[in-house]
């Protein structure tokens, strides 16, 4: 390392390709995230349930004594409901992880005015958002659809090619439902992080949007004797989409297409909020 050079020198070495700049942000943000022991512990905790599911799948195919207990055998039936339940549990864990991680992504940059430093470089606002979003996207993928596909692969290898072919749509449903949940969570967490400078407040707001949103939706439904309130309940909307994707019957108050539309509108609003906030300088008109 040429630290003996104490005067300014120009740089004329090789440059990395422009598309890889978002990965720089991803790398540094991930490194910073996993410096927190709590964060790392929480992340590791998210793999306990997939491991349990793996054991259940193995047991369902290998323990002959389970066959003797009809109820238990029925209980561990590996079908669409099993994978839906898996995605629901991992989705909740993903939400908890996002509540810890998401608020710390953009708010520190805004609090200390670091955005002009990012954006005065050959690095666009879209790349900045993409780089920050990819931190959540990769982390949530690692606990949702990737272990889901591993479970599906294990089940397929144990149950045979026929089962895999007949139930291939479950793999697609797992990926699609996880990706939708990841997009909703990432955009919501980043939009809140961008509008609230304090990390703790941004985390509380994310919890508030989910839980108070659900409570507010119920209150609207009860007071106005309507079902419109469900559109304010992101968890309910997500549940509706998931059950339709996993072909599970559910007495829904709103149709899957309505739920899809509402979720896409939420994503568009979050993206607009994010784009409005992620600027080098605010223009005061």
């Amino acid at each position, binding site marked *: *390392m*040429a*630290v003996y*050079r*104490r*005067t*300014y*020198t*120009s*740089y*004329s*070495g*090789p*440059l*990395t390709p*422009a598309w890889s*700049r978002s990965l*720089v*942000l991803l790398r*540094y943000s991930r490194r*910073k995230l996993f410096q927190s022991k709590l964060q790392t512990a929480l992340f590791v905790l998210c793999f306990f349930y997939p491991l349990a599911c793996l054991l259940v799948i193995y047991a369902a195919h290998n323990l002959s004594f389970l066959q003797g207990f009809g109820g238990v055998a029925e209980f561990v039936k590996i079908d669409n409901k099993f994978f839906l339940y898996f995605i629901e549990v991992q989705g909740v864990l993903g939400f908890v992880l996002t509540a810890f991680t998401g608020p710390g992504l953009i708010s*520190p*940059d805004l*609090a*200390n*005015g*670091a955005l*002009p*430093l*990012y*954006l*005065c*470089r*050959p*690095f*666009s606002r879209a790349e900045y958002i993409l780089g920050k979003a990819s931190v959540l996207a990769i982390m949530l993928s690692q606990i949702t659809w990737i272990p889901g596909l591993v479970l599906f692969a294990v089940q397929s290898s144990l149950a045979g090619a026929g089962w895999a072919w007949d139930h291939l749509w479950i793999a697609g449903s797992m990926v699609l439902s996880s990706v939708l949940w990841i997009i909703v969570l990432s955009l919501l967490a980043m939009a809140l992080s961008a509008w609230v400078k304090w990390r703790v407040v941004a985390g509380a707001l994310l919890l508030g949007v989910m839980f108070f949103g659900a409570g507010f939706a119920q209150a609207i439904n009860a007071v106005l004797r309507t079902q419109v309130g469900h559109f304010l309940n992101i968890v309910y909307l997500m549940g509706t989409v998931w059950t339709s994707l996993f072909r599970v019957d559910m007495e829904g108050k709103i149709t899957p297409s309505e739920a899809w539309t509402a979720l896409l509108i939420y994503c568009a609003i979050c993206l607009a909020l994010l784009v409005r906030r992620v*600027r*080098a*300088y605010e*223009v*005061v*008109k």
Partner: protein
Amino acid sequence: MRFGKREILKDLTCSLRGRAIGLLGPNGAGKSTLINTLLGFYKPTHGSARVLGSDIRTETRRIRSLVGYMPENDAFISKMSAVSFVQMMAELCGLPPSAALERAHEALFCVGLAEARYRELGTYSLGMKQLAKLAQAIAHGPKLLILDEPTNGLDPSARQRMIRMIADIRDSRQLQIVLCSHLLRDVEDTCEEVLILNQGRLAHYSNLEEERKANKRFLELETYGANGDFTEAIEKLGCECAVMANRLKMILPDGVEVRDIYRIAAERQVRIRRLNFRRDTLEDIFLKAMGS
């Protein structure tokens, strides 16, 4: 450049070519807006500009890859060490990780933060944060360095250090500097050319050295043994003179040099105790520009 109904920059036509250019103007003159527009943060409502040959409307990315920018306000990531911060900023400019790390160390040594480079930026004093901002601006080896109020909030010794550092970077002759400040002294100490803005318009643009040379013609002498003969001889050269006790003030016409004054004094055995050029300071230039 217009924000809503308010026109911030107007009728601004100039070409800046100097090695170190000072951007001067009172508060609200449009200095920072000009910089932000050149960096592509604001889209100009009309007109065009080129930075190092690249159009600010269509080649923003190229401009940003060639420019190092030190913003006016606090800009850092508090939970990051200075070396990681500068390395990340260099990587975002396209340097490979190993080269970026090397450049980060070099830049921090260059600005004098070598001993504190592993400390978190949040623990830095204001002066150190300014230096860290300068380090991130030079780490990727830009062709143009834009410094927005680099001495803001610095104590006199820190200010001196910052000015010396900017002068060193300028003297390396490897990049051009645009220094935006409302402190005339900072610009006078570091810049060769000056662009003065007033209410978004170009009030004055000049080369400081040439401006000073043009004002070298005012001369003030303190003499011993001078008499009317000495003054007469000087007036014969074409100088306008004013005598006050043992002091003589004069304006040298073209073609007359200081050595001619020395010659006349030697011939008449007049001792010159003091000789001052009365130069226009940057303050004079600035006030003239504001007045016009």
